[in-house]
C-alpha cells in the first residue's frame, strides 16, 4: 500500500520540481535596480557600467524567453537568475558610484559657471570703457561678442538644469576662455588710445 502511495506521489513531485517558474520577481527587481542607476545619472557618468547592467538584464530576458520556448519539464532558469542577481548586485554599486561622479561633475560645473560669470562681468565692464573711433567696427564686434557670451551663460544654466554637467562645464570653460580673450583685446585697444586726448566727435547718421 505504502509503495503504491509513493508511486502515485512520484510524478506529482517530478512535476513540481521540473516545472521551474520564470524568475519574474527577480527580473522586476533587477529592472528596478537598473532604473535606480539611470536615475542616479549612470548613463552619463558611468556609461560603461550602466551599459553592462542593461546588457545583463537584456541577456537575462533573452535567456528567460529561450527557456519559456522549451517543454515545461526542461525549463531551467538558473542562468537567467544568475544574470539577474549580478545585475541587481552591480546596480547597487553603480548607483553609489554614479551619484558620486555626478556630484563631482556638478561641483566642477558650478565652479566653471561661476568663473565664466565673473569673467563675462569683467569683460562687460571693459566693453563699457572700450574706445570708439577709427576701429568702431572692431568695438561693435567686441560688443556683439560680449553680448553673445552673456547670452551663452543661459545655455550653461540650461545644461545645469538638465543635470548635464559635462556640457555645462565645457560650455562655461569655453565662455571663460573667449571672455578672457575679448577682455585682452579691449585692454589692448584701451592701451593704444590711452595717450590720445583729442576731441571726440560724431558724424554721419
Amino acid at each position, binding site marked *: 500500500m505504502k509503495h503504491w502511495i509513493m508511486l502515485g506521489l512520484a510524478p506529482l513531485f517530478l512535476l513540481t520540481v521540473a516545472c521551474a517558474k520564470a524568475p519574474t520577481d527577480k527580473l522586476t527587481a533587477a529592472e528596478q535596480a537598473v532604473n535606480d542607476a539611470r536615475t542616479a545619472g549612470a548613463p552619463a557618468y558611468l556609461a*560603461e557600467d550602466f551599459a553592462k547592467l542593461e546588457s*545583463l538584464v537584456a*541577456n537575462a530576458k533573452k535567456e528567460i524567453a529561450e527557456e519559456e520556448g522549451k517543454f515545461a519539464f526542461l525549463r531551467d532558469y538558473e542562468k537567467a537568475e544568475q544574470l539577474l542577481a549580478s545585475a541587481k548586485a552591480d546596480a547597487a554599486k553603480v548607483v553609489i558610484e554614479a551619484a558620486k561622479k555626478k556630484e563631482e561633475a556638478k561641483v566642477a560645473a558650478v565652479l566653471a559657471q561661476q568663473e565664466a560669470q565673473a569673467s563675462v562681468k569683467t569683460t562687460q565692464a571693459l566693453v563699457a570703457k572700450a574706445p570708439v573711433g577709427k576701429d568702431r567696427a572692431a568695438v561693435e564686434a567686441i560688443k556683439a561678442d560680449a553680448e553673445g557670451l552673456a547670452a551663452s551663460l543661459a545655455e550653461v544654466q540650461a545644461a545645469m538644469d538638465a543635470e548635464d554637467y*559635462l556640457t555645462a562645464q565645457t560650455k562655461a570653460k569655453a565662455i571663460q576662455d573667449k571672455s578672457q580673450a575679448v577682455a585682452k583685446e579691449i585692454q589692448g585697444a584701451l592701451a593704444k*588710445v590711452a595717450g590720445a586726448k*583729442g576731441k571726440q*566727435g560724431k558724424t554721419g547718421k
Partner: protein
Amino acid sequence: MMSHSRPVPRRISLAALVLVLGMAACVQKAPPELVQAVETLDRELTAAQGAEFAPEEYAKFVEHWTAVRGRMLAEPDVIRLPWEPNRLVADLIKVQEQGVLAVSTATQRREAERQQAEARLTQLEERLQTFTGNLDTMGGRVVLGQRPVETELLAKQARSFFEQGQFVRSQRASQQAAKLLDRQIERLGAELGRYADERRVTAWRNMVAQTVTWSYRHHSAAIVVSKADRRLFVYRNGKAVASYPVSLGYNGILEKRYQGDGATPEGQYRIVRKRDRGDTKFHRALLLDYPNNQDRRRFLQARAAGTLPPNASIGGQIEIHGGENRALSETLGCVQLENRQIDVLFDLIEEGAPVTIVGALGLSNAISLALAELEQTEEG
C-alpha cells in the same frame, strides 16, 4: 582467524587513499591566472567603451562571463571524473576569446570614431580660421552680430570633448558649429552678394564713368569712393590724380538703410557744403547731399515693406572728413581720411562737385573674392 583478517583494512585504506588522491586531482577548479586574464579583459572593455563601440560582442562577453563567474561561486570544488574534461576551464577560455574579440572590436571602432572626430574638428577649426580671416578682410564681422562668438564657443566645446575622449559629443558639437558657419556664410551672401553681382557692379561702374566724364567735361575735380577697396579716388580733368585709404561707418560695407545702422550710403552725391576748421569737429569736412531722391525712395519702400526698425529715420550729415584725433572720433556712416589728405582734397574740390560712392569698381573685389572663398568651404 584474527591474523587472517588483518590485511583487509590496510587494502581498504590504500584504496581509500588512492581514491582521495584521485578525487583531489580531479577537483574542477578555475585556474587563477585565467580568471585574472578575463577580469583584465573586463576592465579593458570598460576603458575601450565596449558597450558603446562593440555592443554585440560586449553583450556576449558579459552574458558568458556572468554565467561562468556564477558557476565559479556556486560550485567552487566540483569533482569530475579523471576522464571527463574540465568544463569550467573550457568555458573560461571561451569567455576569454569573446573578451579578446570584444576588446579588439571596441578598440578599432573607438579609434575610427576618434579619427572621425579629429578630422571633423580639424576641418572645423580650419574653416573657422578661413572664415575669421575673410570676415575681417571684408569687414563683415558686425553684420553677423553674436553668431561668430556662438560658433567659436561650440568649436571650443568640440575640442574640449575631444580631449576628454568624448568623441561622439565632440562630433555633435563640431557639426553644430559647422551648421552655424554655413548659416553665417548664407547670411553674408544675402547681405553682400551684390558685390559679386555682375549687373550691380556694372551699374556701379557706369556711375563711376559718369563721374569721371563730369570731371573731364568740367575740367574739375570729382571724387569716387570704393567701399570694397576702402579707398577714395580723386579725378581731375577725367584722370585719377590721387587715391587715399579711408575708414567707413562701422557697418560700412552694407547699404545704408536708416539712421544709426553704421552703413555708408552708395550713390551719386554732390558736395553741398565745405566745413573748414572751426566749423567742424573733424578738422575739415565736405558735407554730402545725402539723402538724395533715390535714398528717400528706397527708405520709403523699405518702411512700406516693414523691413525697418520702428521709428527709424533716414538720417543725414554724411561727410568726407578728417579728425583731430582719428582714433577717438566716431564714424556712423561717413568717409574718414587722414587730416593731411583732407587738407589736399579740401583745397582741390569745389562745392557742387560730384562724389560717387560705390560698392566696388569691378567683379574681382575684396568682398566678392572673400565671399567666394567662404562659399567654397560650405559643407552644404
